[in-house]
């Protein structure tokens, strides 16, 4: 699957890069290289890259939004301060104005009651100024103005205080020239100018901040919108991927099921087929052999040797075909039969097999070497068939030897499997044909040399494969043969 997804985009990418290298040069190859790089990525890598990109976008947007919001908060704090400052400046000016007009009326009339507002201003002023200093800690220019303002206020109040003292000492005449203009005319003008400057600067800053806030609010809204969109994209792609994955899984499951059903149907058909073979193919063979026998009985006297031999051949061929059918049915059954797993004692198994084969051993000189064998996990009936076939083979192919030597043993126990071998000193085989040994109806000897249908080793291989093991053989012409099989120690079905 991976190779398919990698292969298909590569082709258009490489086709694409061809005309580029011919026609134009500098900036395009870089994107071409990127595209090619991207085209080489597997679907998982692409999905990961896409998610990474979207995720990074969301993180950046969140960071910017956070910063914007912080700015907004800060601006709103500054705005409050500015408003307070403007208000305070008004109050200060009002108080100074009240003090000025109060002291002037006192200078003219000498009525002490006019000094009430002046004294209140003098009393309040330090508090006002402290408050003012607290409100203008940003901006050197403004701070400077406040300092100057402080000085002027102090000097105005001082001048007024001086005038008041003079009035007390020298009477109206002593301060007459002051009574009209006030004691601190210059300061008052300067204070007014400074206050106006302060006020205007603050208003300007306020205005700028409002603009900035509006901009960053707009910005934030746009970014949040983009973030929401990206999150939607992320969600949608997650949904799409999950949906795709589920759909794919469903499809695979459905396919598996349909294949399973097909396989079951095929198995049923095969069963019906072999059933029919066992019933219907045997009958005509029985008839051939039967009628040949009847013919031989009815006309045997009148037939010559040649004709009798023909009849015999007909009969033999029918029998042989019957044997082939039986073997084929056994072979087919070996593949379908349910397996019963138990622990099998191979030593015991060999003993029973040799007992079963005792008729074949009659009149033979055989030297047996049977090493202790391990216990294995497997189907006892099937494993028995394996040894029957291997030992029968060894007996068959040593028939021409004056003394047959047959050795059965276990190979070195490697990790995970048990190896068993059956060795004989029989006619052996050419390693060139080793691949044909275990094939169905494959024979390495002519029928007049050694009888057989060629199903034995095929059965061995099928049984061992169903146990999850392997079969192999080695030999040389006239030097004997060794057949090996392995069985996994841990049970694994096939």
């Amino acid at each position: 699957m991976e190779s398919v997804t990698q292969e298909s985009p590569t082709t258009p990418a490489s086709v694409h890069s061809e005309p580029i290298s011919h026609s134009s040069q500098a900036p395009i190859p870089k994107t071409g290289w990127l595209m090619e790089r991207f085209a080489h990525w597997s679907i998982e890598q692409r999905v990961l890259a896409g998610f990474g990109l979207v995720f990074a976008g969301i993180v950046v947007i969140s960071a910017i939004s956070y910063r914007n919001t912080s700015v907004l908060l800060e601006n709103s704090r500054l705005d409050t301060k500015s408003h307070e400052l403007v208000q305070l400046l008004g109050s200060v000016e009002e108080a100074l104005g009240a003090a000025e007009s109060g002291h002037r009326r006192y200078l003219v009339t000498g009525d002490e009651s006019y000094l009430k507002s002046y004294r209140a201003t003098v009393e309040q002023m330090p508090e006002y100024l402290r408050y003012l200093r607290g409100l203008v800690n940003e901006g050197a220019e403004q701070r400077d103005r406040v300092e100057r303002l402080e000085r002027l206020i102090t000097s105005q109040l001082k001048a007024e205080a001086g005038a008041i003292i003079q009035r007390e000492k020298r009477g109206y005449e002593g301060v007459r020239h002051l009574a009209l203009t006030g004691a601190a005319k210059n300061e008052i003008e300067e204070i007014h100018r400074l206050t106006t400057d302060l006020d205007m600067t603050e208003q300007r800053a306020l205005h700028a901040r409002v603009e900035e806030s509006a901009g960053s609010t707009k910005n934030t809204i746009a970014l949040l919108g983009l973030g929401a969109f990206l999150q939607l994209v992320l969600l949608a792609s997650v949904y799409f991927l999950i949906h795709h994955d589920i759909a794919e899984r469903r499809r695979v499951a459905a396919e598996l099921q349909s294949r399973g059903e097909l396989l079951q149907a095929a198995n049923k058909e095969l069963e019906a087929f072999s059933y029919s073979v066992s019933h219907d193919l045997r009958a005509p063979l029985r008839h051939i052999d039967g009628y040949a026998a009847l013919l031989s009985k009815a006309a045997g006297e009148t037939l010559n040797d040649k004709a009798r031999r023909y009849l015999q051949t007909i009969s033999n061929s029918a029998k042989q075909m019957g044997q082939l059918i039986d073997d084929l049915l056994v072979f087919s059954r070996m593949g379908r039969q349910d397996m019963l797993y138990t622990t099998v004692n191979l030593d015991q198994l060999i003993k029973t097999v040799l007992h079963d084969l005792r008729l074949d051993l009659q009149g033979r000189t055989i030297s047996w070497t049977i090493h202790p064998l391990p216990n294995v996990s497997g189907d006892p009936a099937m494993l028995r068939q394996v040894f029957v076939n291997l030992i029968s083979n060894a007996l068959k192919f040593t028939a021409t030897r004056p003394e047959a030597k047959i050795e059965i043993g276990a190979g070195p126990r490697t990790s995970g499997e048990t190896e068993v071998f059956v060795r004989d000193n029989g006619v052996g085989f050419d390693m060139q044909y080793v691949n044909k040994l275990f094939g169905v109806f494959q024979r390495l000897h002519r029928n007049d040399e050694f009888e057989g249908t060629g199903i034995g080793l095929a059965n061995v291989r099928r049984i061992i494969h169903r146990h999850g093991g392997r079969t192999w053989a080695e030999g040389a012409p006239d030097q004997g043969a060794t057949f090996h099989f392995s069985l996994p120690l841990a049970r694994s079905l096939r």
Partner: protein
Amino acid sequence: MTTVKPILLAEDNPRDAELALAAMEEHHIADKVVVCHDGAEVLDYLYCRGIFAAREQGNPVVVFLDLKMPKVDGLEVLRAIKNDANLKPIPVVMLTSSREERDLAQSYALGANAYVVKPVEFHQFITAVKELGIFWGVINEPPPESSDPSA
């Protein structure tokens, strides 16, 4: 009731029937054999109906039953026989080509008395059929005809 009780051979294949008869002939029991060519005919014979309506009453000494037959197959015939109180005592021997475990198990489960696989080799076949004929037709004592046929 003086006549010898017949052997019923259910065999749809005329060649198999002929070979079986040839085998029994050697022991002169072939004339006791009645051949039916399908399951329906077997049931007709047993219930004395159809072409066997006029036959003499009484059960056969044994039924040799092939499994695969047209119309009504061997297992169905076997089921019919073993489900009928009157016919149940008749020994039924399955004589078939099938060596399938399934057939064996089903036949015995339905109450077959024996199951014989027809050998491909004629001599073995002849021996098998001959021995079956002699055992069931001559040596074996058939069940008594207990029930009243008119009942």
